């Protein structure tokens, strides 16, 4: 095993899939000559040429729709949104065209497309550039949504997404691009299935269910809680849709106490769905009500202190854990 960054892991995934399948191409703003706004596509233009690594004008609806059309005739586009906040300009293509085509055509046209890019609040970007879109997209039948938190998951999930025959959104964590982690060597095929959560840390007192940017937060908090003799199990969802119910229920059956820490908003957020499913299926396993830690229900303020107050943080998460543990 070797250590690489989340950004490098994504870059490797793109390069390997482009190399493997001539139907795969990468399209988006600044992906080619600029090497990617976040340098995820660094070097790909040089390696694969302008036919397959394609710069677009600032026309999210246009190029997202172009991708869906190309997918109708069997190409496998990877469409990069500079951030998923901008995907809202292409909402109609992502929500109305990509996932509906298979149903509307009576199964004649599946859409093997990957939409990817950074998602979730970063640092002082203000309300328009801080959207966490996972709950919006996960509520749409026909879409799949994954949210890698580590370099290994980023590589394995992106490669799987490209090979899937349906529209898949790979919501990358903007704040984690430079984070490092161990990943299999490049000559070893790394595919991580959609819909499989991973226990990132074993524990026995409480399950902290998390994904994307809340995974490192949960791991940090788990280490702190250890010192207070609270053993937290960290369940990284990795995919929001399909959702790995079994992994969640197994952990609940083990710890009987649950905190969900999510990066989206509380109203109809991912945690609401997870919470519903737990109480519906394994109600008797619970020893305490489930608590959710999410963003505050406000548009993201620019001010740094206020932004911190909006986001989930260690203090909020520790308080929630102690509450469910009656500690």
């Amino acid at each position: 095993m070797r250590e690489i960054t989340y950004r490098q892991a994504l870059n490797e995934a793109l390069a390997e899939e482009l190399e493997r399948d001539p139907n795969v191409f990468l399209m988006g703003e600044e992906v080619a000559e600029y090497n990617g706004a976040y340098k995820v596509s660094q070097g790909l233009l040089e390696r694969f040429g302008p036919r397959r690594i394609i710069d677009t004008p600032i026309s999210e609806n246009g190029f997202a729709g172009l991708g869906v059309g190309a997918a109708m005739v069997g190409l496998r586009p990877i469409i990069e949104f500079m951030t998923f906040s901008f995907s809202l300009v292409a909402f109609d293509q992502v929500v109305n065209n990509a996932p509906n085509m298979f149903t509307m055509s009576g199964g004649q046209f599946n859409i093997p497309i990957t939409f990817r890019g950074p998602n979730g609040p970063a640092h002082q970007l203000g309300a328009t550039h801080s959207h966490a879109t996972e709950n919006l997209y996960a509520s749409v039948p026909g879409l799949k949504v994954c949210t890698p938190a580590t370099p290994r998951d980023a590589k394995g999930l992106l490669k799987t997404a490209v090979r899937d025959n349906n529209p898949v959104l790979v919501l990358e964590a903007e704040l984690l691009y430079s984070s490092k982690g161990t990943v299999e060597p490049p000559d070893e095929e790394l595919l991580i299935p959609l819909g499989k959560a991973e226990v990132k840390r074993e524990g026995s007192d409480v399950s902290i269910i998390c994904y994307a940017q809340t995974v490192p937060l949960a791991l940090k908090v788990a280490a702190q809680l250890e010192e207070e003799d609270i053993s937290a199990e960290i369940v990284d969802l990795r995919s929001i849709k399909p959702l790995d119910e079994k992994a969640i229920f197994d952990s609940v059956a083990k710890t009987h106490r649950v905190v969900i820490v999510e990066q989206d908003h509380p109203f109809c957020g991912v945690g609401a769905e997870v919470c519903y499913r737990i109480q519906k299926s394994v109600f008797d396993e619970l020893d305490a009500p489930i608590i959710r830690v999410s963003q505050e229900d406000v548009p993201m303020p620019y001010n740094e202190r206020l932004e911190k107050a909006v986001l989930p943080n260690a203090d909020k998460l520790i308080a929630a854990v102690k509450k469910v543990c009656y500690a």
Partner: protein
Amino acid sequence: MTAMQLGEQRDEVEMLSLMLLIRRFEERASQQYQAQKIGGFCHLYIGQEAVVAGAVAAVRDDDYIITAYRDHAHALARGTSANACMAELFGKETGCSRGLGGSMHFFNRQNHMYGGHAIVAAHVPLAVGLAFAIKYRDEDRVTLCFFGDGAINQGSFHEALNLAALYKLPIVFICENNLFAMGTSVKRSTSLKQIVDRAEGYDIPGEIVDGMNFREVRDKIAEIVSSIRKESHPAFVEVRTYRYRGHSMSDPASYRTKQELEKYRLDDPITRLRAQLTREGKLTHEQFDLLDKRAKETVLASVKFAEESPQPPLDKLYDYTYANGANS
């Protein structure tokens, strides 16, 4: 190959027959809608038949076509049976989209008819994607993208035209200008004096064509397509046409005068092509009557077929949300 040679590949009597089939199909759909056999929205093509007939006569069967929600005619023109079309309107499993699409979402993959799209102008980027795929694979094909005059003020239309011009894609944008976007006239919706000028803004060559004249539509599009096959580029055609019925079945079209409608009816595309063929000795009155009789019979049979077809099974409700597996 000249435009005329290309056009002559399709028998004009056959194309007249298609136009008759479209008209009789739409008339019968209207009746079945009123009888509540058809649900949802239903937009009829009556009056516009020469546009799609002329366009498909100008291209090959494996060229791509895609359109908006007034799509019954485009499916028929691409060889989708009246049975499959009517069954789709009835929501039956034998429909061209298995009863899951409805009037606005007709598809025929085998015959390269890529929908049937109901959000105004949202399919124009899809069409550009089809054309992108043609160029990506270096194929000898073109894409015909049909849309109405209402589409030209939507952002996705503009983004798509710019992309097509930027990447020099093999696509003909065919604006079926029937003068009204639902109840709003072009004059009330569009700042330009003529729609074709939209193309100029993207450095795309544009033409105006009389959409009531089958031969003019066919020859102009054949000429454009011939140029695109030589060197890939987008083109734009404003086809001036008229729908005799309202925007949809629920629209009495009170925003226009009877006189205006009558004026266009006098210029009917079917009557016109019939007269041209009769004058040239290529069609007798008896032959025309026979064609019309056949069209009516085909359509009547399609109603019976649709009525007798099974409903899509409830236990397959979840079968068409996700495609299985990974095929590459």
